[in-house]
């Protein structure tokens, strides 16, 4: 399925040339047909159709519904929607319906977008394959035997499979970019604080950011520009206004200084992925960019720091799921017993693993050695990236060390799964923006993503580089046989 870009849909709806209802109906039909992907936890068909009709009425009345008029958008199921269950793909939130909409949902509504449903994810965004879901895994539209990546695998599969035009997801250590790469779409993590976290169920508060997933860089930029901006309800929100990105998308890369991060191009990165990265670097150079290698020494320690800081914050953030106020409650004789029984039944293994890890890292006697040291590494990562940005405008790296792996391939080995995030966590630790752009295919014809990283608030130059890569792609040959992208059915 070749979906129309969001910009085209919105333009047609605003001009009265097509109806929002038809766009939404198409999406709902595709969702129904693509059920075997397991991309959605909930489809809000009725509400979506009602909203599409309201948009069509508004257009008929001469009103402008906004820059995303009639565009179907899916939401990762950790983004709160009033009156619609928000589960984080966990049993512990069983039956909970938020009494409020996340700020990004308010912004989507104000821009005329239509939310079509909530997408599957690794439970509480902890994972890299969307296999850690209480509702079963999501499958990769390019090969149903393979994972879509994670934790935002549902959003990625929904966009890649043409079930929705756009999707929002969250990225704590690569959860937007890695599945985008594995599913062959564009996924972007904004500068920390650029998009409000109000209404995003927290995993690791100092790392979480909501960001767009789309088929094209322009659509990702469009969705980003709708959700970005200051929100007084999020104290970590950045007050500076968001600039216009249209110039960036059209801009060239002549003279742009592009650094390829050597530490992220070595051991552990598959050859087919590295080949596509080299191809991307070469394409940028041929377009006039000054491409060089850059060393970011602390980048390799990022993963260890990430797997202490994120679980530490998670151990505290997830403490509220105790069966007292909402969600699952497993009855037991006393209050403490009830807490334990509820959490034991409600959380999956990976979530429990990280709660234990994080609790340990923060414990008296261990804090300095683990959490404290991880914070120092985080400072080093930020410093090393700052040094790199003195010499380069953007940095280039793989998004994922491998193409999409098979379902079940890494579930028995958490450490192997954690390595999926090795190229992406640094941007979260530093709070910098980064985007994954599809750049051909690797082994088995599976998509490969290239990651463009930029300094804080450098979304402009990041999108400029990403748009250029997108334009340059057809001119580059894939190192592996591209093959026909299979949009198969489940085996």
């Amino acid at each position, binding site marked *: 399925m070749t979906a129309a870009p969001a910009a085209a849909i919105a333009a047609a709806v605003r001009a009265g040339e097509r109806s929002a209802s038809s766009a939404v109906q198409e999406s709902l039909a595709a969702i129904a047909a693509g059920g075997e992907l397991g991309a959605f936890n909930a489809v809000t068909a009725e509400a979506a159709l009602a909203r599409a009709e309201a948009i069509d009425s508004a257009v008929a009345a001469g009103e402008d519904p906004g820059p995303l008029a009639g565009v179907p958008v899916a939401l990762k199921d950790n983004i709160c929607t009033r009156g619609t269950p928000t589960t984080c793909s966990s049993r512990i939130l069983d039956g909970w319906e938020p*009494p409020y909409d996340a700020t990004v949902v308010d912004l989507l509504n104000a821009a005329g977008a239509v939310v079509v449903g909530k997408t599957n994810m690794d439970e509480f965004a902890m994972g890299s394959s969307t296999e850690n879901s209480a509702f079963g895994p999501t499958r990769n539209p390019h090969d149903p035997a393979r994972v879509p990546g994670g934790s935002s695998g549902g959003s990625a599969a929904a966009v890649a499979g043409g079930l929705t035009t756009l999707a929002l997801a969250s990225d704590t250590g690569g959860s937007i970019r890695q599945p985008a790469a594995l599913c062959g779409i564009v996924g972007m993590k904004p500068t920390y604080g650029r998009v409000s976290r109000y209404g995003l169920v927290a995993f690791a508060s100092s790392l979480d950011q909501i960001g767009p997933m789309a088929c094209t860089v322009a659509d990702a930029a469009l969705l980003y520009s709708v959700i970005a901006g200051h929100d007084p309800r999020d104290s970590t929100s950045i007050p500076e206004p968001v600039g216009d990105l249209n110039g960036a998308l059209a801009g060239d890369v002549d003279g742009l200084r592009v650094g390829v991060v050597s530490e992220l191009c070595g051991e552990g990165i598959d050859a087919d992925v590295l080949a596509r990265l080299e191809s991307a670097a070469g394409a940028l150079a041929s377009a006039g960019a000054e491409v060089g290698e850059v060393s970011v020494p602390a980048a390799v320690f990022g993963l260890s720091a990430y797997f202490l800081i994120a679980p530490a914050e998670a151990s505290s953030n997830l403490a509220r799921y105790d069966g007292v106020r909402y969600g699952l409650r497993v009855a037991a004789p006393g209050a403490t017993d009830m807490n334990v029984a509820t959490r034991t039944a409600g959380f999956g293994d990976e979530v429990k693993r990280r709660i234990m890890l994080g609790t340990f890292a923060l414990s008296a006697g261990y804090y300095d050695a683990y959490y404290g040291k991880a914070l120092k590494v985080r400072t080093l990562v930020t410093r090393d990236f700052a040094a790199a940005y003195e010499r380069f405008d953007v940095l280039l790296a793989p998004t994922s060390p491998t193409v999409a792996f098979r379902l079940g391939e890494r579930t028995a080995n958490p450490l192997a799964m954690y390595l999926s995030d090795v190229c992406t966590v640094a941007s979260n630790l530093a709070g910098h923006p980064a985007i994954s752009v599809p750049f051909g295919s690797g082994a088995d014809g599976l998509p490969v993503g290239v990651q463009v990283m930029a300094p804080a608030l450098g979304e402009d130059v990041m999108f400029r580089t990403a748009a250029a890569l997108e334009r340059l792609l057809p001119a580059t040959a894939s190192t592996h046989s591209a093959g026909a992208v299979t949009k198969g059915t489940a085996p």
Partner: protein
Amino acid sequence: MLTRTKLFSASLNSFGGEPNSHIDSVCLGLPGTLPVLNRHAVELAMRVGLALGAEVRPSIFARKNYYYPDMPKNYQISQYDRPINVGGSLELPSGKVVGTVRAHLEEDTGKSTHVGGAGRIDDAAWSLVDYNRAGVPLLEIVSHPDLRSAAEAREYVTELRATLLAVGASDGKMEEGSLRVDANISVRPLGSAEFGTRCEVKNVNSLRSLGRALEYEARRQIDLLSSGERVTQETRHWNEDTGRTSPLRSKEEATDYRYFPEPDLVPLVPDPAWIERVRAELPLLPRQRRHRLAAATGQPPARLALVVERGQDELALETTEAGADPEAVLKHLEQNLADGTGRLTAAGLAGLITMEQSGELTSNQVKEVLAEMVTSGESPATVARRAGFEAVGAGELAGVVDRIIAEHPAEWQRLRAGDDRERKKMQGFFTGQVMRATKGQANGRDVAALLADRAGS
């Protein structure tokens, strides 16, 4: 603290109300919600800090992690290693100075009621939770171990409360929990420089309880040491009914709170101009008011605590400045105006004291006039005239005395010839007769002088 809304959300901060009527998504810690710091709470915290002479510093919030059903997030947002106020001290009326370590901001928890069983959380039939209090702003003020007796502890809390009230940070109502005290106490042998092992006493809900709990706990610790046992560091619960403390948890059982910086909030760095504005707007503090009145009256600050506490120091100052005898001014405020000064003016009080000291009014009359002045705000002369309290002239009084003596010759004989006891009794009799004849308007000293003169003694 006296804010309109909670520390991190828009729900009302008000005592009482239907359970769970002052709540919202943020103070309930619903998934996805985020805290936003209340600016007014920060300002009140700074007022207290500056009143204590503390340094207002850039600070950060931390999470204090522990499970309890009345804590919606199962962590409390507090300040840990970088509190907003550092250092400072509080001077008590006695002149003793108690150091303060810090005064930091944190959110309150909700309130649990355990029903059935022994009333404890894990054996109750059920528990009811009211989240109205959850997220209410608190300021925790930690003092140095400078207090040496239960009385001093009470004096410290009294002075602290007066200071909090003066700067408008709290209503100081211990019975409503808006001022709570955790009292740490240790004992040591006379002459020992080292502090003993301390215990923390919780559930002290009034000044009286504070005194009782500390007296009890000091005695308990002394008894332990006297019988060769050791004091265990622990938290103890004060039981108002039994008048005893009992162990709550030992140091070993203490929760590991796993503090770490609250990632949902940014560092709190008050603008220096803001701090200076708050400092400049501070009202006169109780200590300053005592010293000001001490300078004007020549009295020690300790004596002036009551007058300052009642807010009568301004009137005392003005009355003294109007030329009244400071001792007489303080005496009236301390003894006759406990229920307030109403419409009494400095000029009025000064005038009344003049009339009293010149003998124009008897002490009983002064009290009556003063009470009327408090109600009406009139001058003492006006009130005295209306009440018919014009002093009996010296000549008129002598006539009355002579007439009474003539009317009671037998009694007069007993006064003149009797022993000391008899004479005193008869003096009382004649004074009473004179007072009755003058409707109490005679000056007692003048009557005594006339009787002595006539008796020729």
